[in-house]
C-alpha cells in the first residue's frame, strides 16, 4: 500500500484529496489528511462579516464533511516532518509514515510579529479581519465608530488575498456613506508597496479609485512597531500614522512546523519549483496553495488552478512518467468596490492584470478591471461555487491557463492613446 499524506484540509488540501481519491486506486493508495480542527472556513466571507452582510453560520462547514469517502481525516497539530525518513510526528506523539507528502498548511496572520500589535489596544482599537474572531470583533467595533481616523494597514507582503485590504477600504467608505458618517471619518490606506497594488496598470486603476473616495494613501510604509499609548503606527524610517480605529493585516507566515522541520524560508514558506510545486529539497514532497514560496498571489484561485495541474502531474509521477503539466501562476479575483459593484482581475506570473473580458475572451460576460454589478454578483455567487463545485473538485468551465486573447495590453493602450 502506498501512502499519500496531506497536511492541511483547507482549500488546497481538500481539493487535492477530492481529486486524487477518484484517480488513485483505493486498493493501492491510502490517503490521509491532517488538520488541527474540524472547521473549514469560507475565508472570502470574512470580508463581509464586519459589515453584517453574512451571518457566521454561512461561512463555515465541517472539514470532514468536505472530504470524500475513503480518505482518513486526522485531527492533530503537526510537530515536525522528518523528510529524510518520510515521517511526520504530531504534537501528541502520533507518528505517520508517507511515500508522498503534500504540505497544504497555508499562511496565517501573525500579530505577534509586530511589537505593540498584541498590546492593550488589540481588539479595542486595533483589529484584523482575516480571522473569524477578528472579523466578528471588528463588526462590533464598527457599530460604535462614528468619527475619527480609520486606518487600513498592510504590514508586509506577501499576504493572503492581496486585494482584500483594498476591498475593505472601499466597503468601509460605502458603509460610512450609507450611514451619513463619511464626512466625520478620515480614511488612510497604509501600504509597504509604492502604490495601491503590486502591478502597475491595476495599481493605477485601484489607486484612482482610492482618490475618488478621498482615501489618502501612505505608501512605502514598513511598520516597525505600534505606539500603543499614542495610538500610532511607527515605520522603520520614523514616520507616524495616528489612528482611532486601525484595521491591520498582520505579517503573514507559513506554519511553524515547516520552520521546525527545516523546510521553510524566512517566512516559513516551502521553496518549490514554481511550475510543478515540487519541493526543491525532496522529490516526494510538494507544497500546494499558500504554503509554498511561488511568486503568485496567496489566494484560493491560485490554489484551484495549480491543484488541477498538480493532480495530473501527481498521477504521472506515481506511474513513473515525467510530469508534463506546468503551472503559469494563473490567478483571478473579484474586488468588491462598494455600492453593489465589483471588479474582476485575471493575471499570472508574467502578465499583469489587464482590461478585457472573462472567462470567454471578447465575450465575457464579465468585464476585467472595470466596476460592474455583474462582478459583484459573481463574487456573491462564488460562495456557492466554492462549497459545491470547487472543493469537491467538480469540473469548472474555466481555463486553467491564463489567456491573453482580447485583453488590452500596454502596447495596444499606448497605440489607442496616440491616435
Amino acid at each position, binding site marked *: 500500500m502506498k501512502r499519500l499524506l496531506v497536511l492541511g484540509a483547507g482549500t488546497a488540501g481538500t481539493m487535492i484529496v477530492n481529486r486524487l481519491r477518484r484517480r488513485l486506486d483505493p486498493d493501492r493508495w491510502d490517503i490521509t489528511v491532517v488538520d488541527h480542527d474540524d472547521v473549514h472556513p469560507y475565508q472570502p466571507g470574512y470580508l463581509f462579516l464586519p459589515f453584517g452582510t453574512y451571518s457566521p453560520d454561512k461561512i463555515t462547514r465541517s472539514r470532514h464533511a468536505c472530504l470524500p469517502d475513503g480518505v482518513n481525516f486526522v485531527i492533530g497539530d503537526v510537530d515536525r516532518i522528518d523528510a529524510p525518513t518520510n515521517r511526520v510526528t504530531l504534537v501528541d506523539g502520533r507518528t505517520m509514515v508517507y511515500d508522498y507528502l503534500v504540505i497544504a498548511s497555508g499562511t496565517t496572520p501573525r500579530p505577534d510579529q509586530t511589537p505593540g500589535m498584541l498590546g492593550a489596544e488589540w481588539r479595542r482599537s486595533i483589529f484584523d479581519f482575516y480571522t473569524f474572531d477578528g472579523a466578528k470583533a471588528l463588526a462590533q467595533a464598527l457599530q460604535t465608530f462614528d468619527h475619527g481616523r480609520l486606518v487600513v494597514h498592510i504590514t508586509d*507582503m*506577501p499576504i493572503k488575498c492581496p486585494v482584500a485590504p483594498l476591498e475593505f477600504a472601499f466597503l468601509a467608505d460605502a458603509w460610512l456613506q450609507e450611514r451619513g458618517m463619511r464626512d466625520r471619518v478620515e480614511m488612510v490606506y497604509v501600504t509597504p*508597496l*509604492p502604490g495601491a497594488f503590486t502591478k502597475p496598470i491595476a495599481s493605477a486603476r485601484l489607486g484612482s479609485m482610492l482618490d475618488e473616495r478621498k482615501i489618502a494613501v501612505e505608501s*512605502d510604509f*514598513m511598520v*516597525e512597531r505600534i505606539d500603543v499609548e499614542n495610538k500610532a503606527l511607527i515605520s522603520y*524610517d520614523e514616520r507616524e500614522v495616528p489612528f482611532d480605529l486601525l484595521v491591520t493585516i498582520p505579517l503573514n507566515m507559513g506554519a511553524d512546523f515547516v520552520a521546525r522541520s527545516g523546510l521553510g524560508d*524566512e517566512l516559513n514558506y516551502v521553496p518549490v519549483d514554481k511550475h510543478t510545486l515540487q519541493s526543491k529539497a525532496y522529490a516526494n514532497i510538494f507544497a500546494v496553495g499558500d504554503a509554498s514560496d511561488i*511568486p503568485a498571489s496567496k489566494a484560493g484561485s491560485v490554489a484551484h488552478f495549480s491543484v488541477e495541474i498538480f493532480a495530473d502531474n501527481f498521477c504521472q509521477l506515481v506511474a513513473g512518467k515525467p510530469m508534463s503539466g506546468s503551472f503559469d501562476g494563473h490567478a483571478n479575483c473579484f474586488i468588491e468596490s462598494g455600492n453593489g459593484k465589483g471588479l474582476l482581475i485575471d493575471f499570472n506570473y508574467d502578465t499583469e492584470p489587464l482590461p478585457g473580458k472573462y472567462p470567454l475572451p471578447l465575450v465575457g460576460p464579465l468585464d476585467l478591471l472595470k466596476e460592474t454589478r455583474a462582478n459583484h454578483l459573481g463574487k456573491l455567487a462564488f460562495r456557492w461555487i466554492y462549497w459545491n463545485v470547487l472543493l469537491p473538485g467538480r469540473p469548472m468551465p474555466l481555463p486553467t491557463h491564463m489567456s491573453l486573447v482580447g485583453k488590452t495590453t500596454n502596447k495596444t493602450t499606448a497605440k489607442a492613446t496616440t491616435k
Partner: protein
Amino acid sequence: MPVTTLQGHHVNVNEEGFLTDPTEWDDDLGSVLAAQIGITLTDEHWKAIRFLRKDFEEQGETPTLRRVSTVGGIPIKSLFALFPAKPAKKMAYVAGLPKPHGCV
C-alpha cells in the same frame, strides 16, 4: 533594452536603470551606481550588497528586506538608514540585480 555607459562601464539596463545582466556588475560599478542615487558606500553598505549578490546567486531571486534582515543579519532599521526611503529597491539597484518581486 538600452545600453548605457557609466564612467567607462558599458551595461545593459531596463527602463528604470536596473542592470538586466547581473554578470556585468563588479565592485567598482557598485560604487558608481550608488553615486547615481547619492549614496557613498561604507563597509555597512557593502555588507548588505555582498549578501544580496550571494543570495541572488544561490536563490535566483533578489531577497526581500525581511530576508536581508533575518537571513543576512542586518536589521531592517539599519537598511532604512543606509538606503533611505526605498531600501529594497535601492539595494537591488546598487547590487546590479532586478527589483525584488517577492511582493505580489
